[in-house]
């Protein structure tokens, strides 16, 4: 194994070890997604009971949207939270003075995130099928390009929010939890973009997630995925990932100048 791969593997293991003998951490993986699924699932069942069959058909969007939103949200969290874990453990300084490169650190977090998200999606898919007869497989091959785009955008947000943690330390923690929810209403997760006020729609179209949620609704309605939506999301993701990388680099350099880097975990 090359030294670089060895370091990525070391950090990947470090984050997997978070789950050893830790029931709260293991429960946390599925607790919130399952709670969300229950709420949205029961809302869906209720709407099916009280509305016409046409509206009842539309509400299956909600479960799909909820699962897709969770993928995006968890992708962001699986980068920022492991970083915070090291701050809480007062271990960040040890890592910053080791030969670990920042990109290796991020890669390890992404690998850990993929494992965690796979578990979450598998659990949600089984529960959605069992309780609401909703099959994630109904999206067919469209599922993968949509998920990849959601992961990329979640990682871009995660890299950006990790930069905020470097820049502001513990005080930025509230933003780590809050920033995805700033993106949620603009991404048209549970409704089409056309529902948004006209002046907000161009802002919504600047987010890759909007194209994916629009695409998902298209697949459920027509059975086909508009490739233009996937490529638009992918192009925007490349831009956001580059911007996130630059912002992280800039915030790291500013934190180094201001002495915030050396106070990480103790502020």
């Amino acid at each position: 194994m090359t030294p670089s791969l060895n370091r990525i593997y070391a950090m990947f293991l470090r984050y997997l070890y978070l789950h050893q003998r830790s029931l709260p951490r293991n429960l946390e993986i599925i607790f919130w997604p399952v709670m969300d699924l229950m709420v949205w699932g029961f809302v869906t069942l209720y709407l099916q009971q009280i509305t016409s069959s046409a509206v009842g058909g539309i509400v299956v969007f909600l479960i799909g949207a909820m699962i897709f939103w969770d993928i995006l949200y968890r992708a962001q969290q699986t980068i920022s939270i492991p970083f915070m874990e090291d701050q809480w453990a007062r271990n960040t300084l040890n890592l910053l003075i080791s030969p670990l490169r920042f990109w290796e650190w991020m890669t390890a977090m992404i690998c850990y995130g993929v494992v965690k998200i796979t578990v979450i999606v598998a659990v949600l898919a089984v529960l959605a099928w069992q309780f609401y007869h909703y099959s994630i497989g109904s999206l067919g091959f469209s599922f993968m390009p949509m998920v990849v785009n959601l992961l990329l955008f979640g990682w871009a947000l995660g890299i950006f929010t990790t930069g905020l943690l470097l820049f502001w330390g513990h005080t930025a923690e509230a933003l780590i939890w809050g920033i995805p929810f700033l993106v949620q209403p603009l991404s048209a997760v549970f409704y089409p973009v056309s529902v948004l006020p006209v002046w907000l729609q161009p802002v919504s179209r600047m987010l890759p997630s909007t194209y994916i949620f629009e695409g998902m609704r298209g697949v459920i309605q027509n059975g086909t995925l508009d490739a233009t939506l996937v490529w638009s999301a992918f192009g925007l993701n490349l831009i956001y990932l580059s911007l996130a990388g630059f912002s992280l680099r800039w915030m790291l350099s500013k934190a180094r100048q201001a002495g915030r880097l050396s106070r990480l975990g103790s502020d």
Partner: protein
Amino acid sequence: MSNSDYGRMEPVIELQDLCKRYNGTEALKNLSFQLKKGEILGLLGPNGAGKTTAIHIILGLLTPTSGEVKVFGLSPIQHRFQLLPRLNFSSAYVNLPYNLTAVQNLELYARLYNVKDAKRKIKELLEVFQISHLGRRRSGFLSSGEQTRLNLCKAFLNDPELLLLDEPTASLDPDMADLVKRVILKVQKERGIAILYTSHNMTEVEMVCDRILFIHHGEKKAEGTAAEVIQRFKTENLEQVFIRIARSGDLLA
């Protein structure tokens, strides 16, 4: 080794007129010093004197406002990844992940530092610091003294040529502090490691350090062997020098 021997050696650390200002406060004012190969330099001063700032600049965690810092002749900011495998750091205020066992923590850092024959090395260090029996225990369940010894195992893991120890015995009882000092001295003599050492225990400093440097309000106040500094300040011991500098540092400049 005498002072003249050290004088002939290449400096491992070289600080030249180093200044660091943040938020209108001058943390370091024209600080200059050298640390030579195989030497233990005690960096001393009251709380807030600028010791940690200097250490963090050497580690590349902080950029100086002005002045020059070289580690093995290279800038710790520009040549960061060339330098980091050659040094290590331990502080009483920095921990290892608490949910990992002692051995898992050392395995993690062995991979990060690309240590060859890591299992043997880890076993050896746990024995040296007398914590072999705690290998399977999670770090969070170790006493502060045991955690300190585990941190020191991590610090010696990559056979560093330069070691920065920030109050390494701060949370140890006298027996363990003595053991740790002896281990540090033994390993340092065997491998010729350069060590920058901070401590508030002046007896320990006299025992461990070849040379000391007092700083206060970011400025150098005294430099030399413990005997030379005691003589210059006309006191009986290093602790009295420390108290004089801490209480009237500005008058001594």
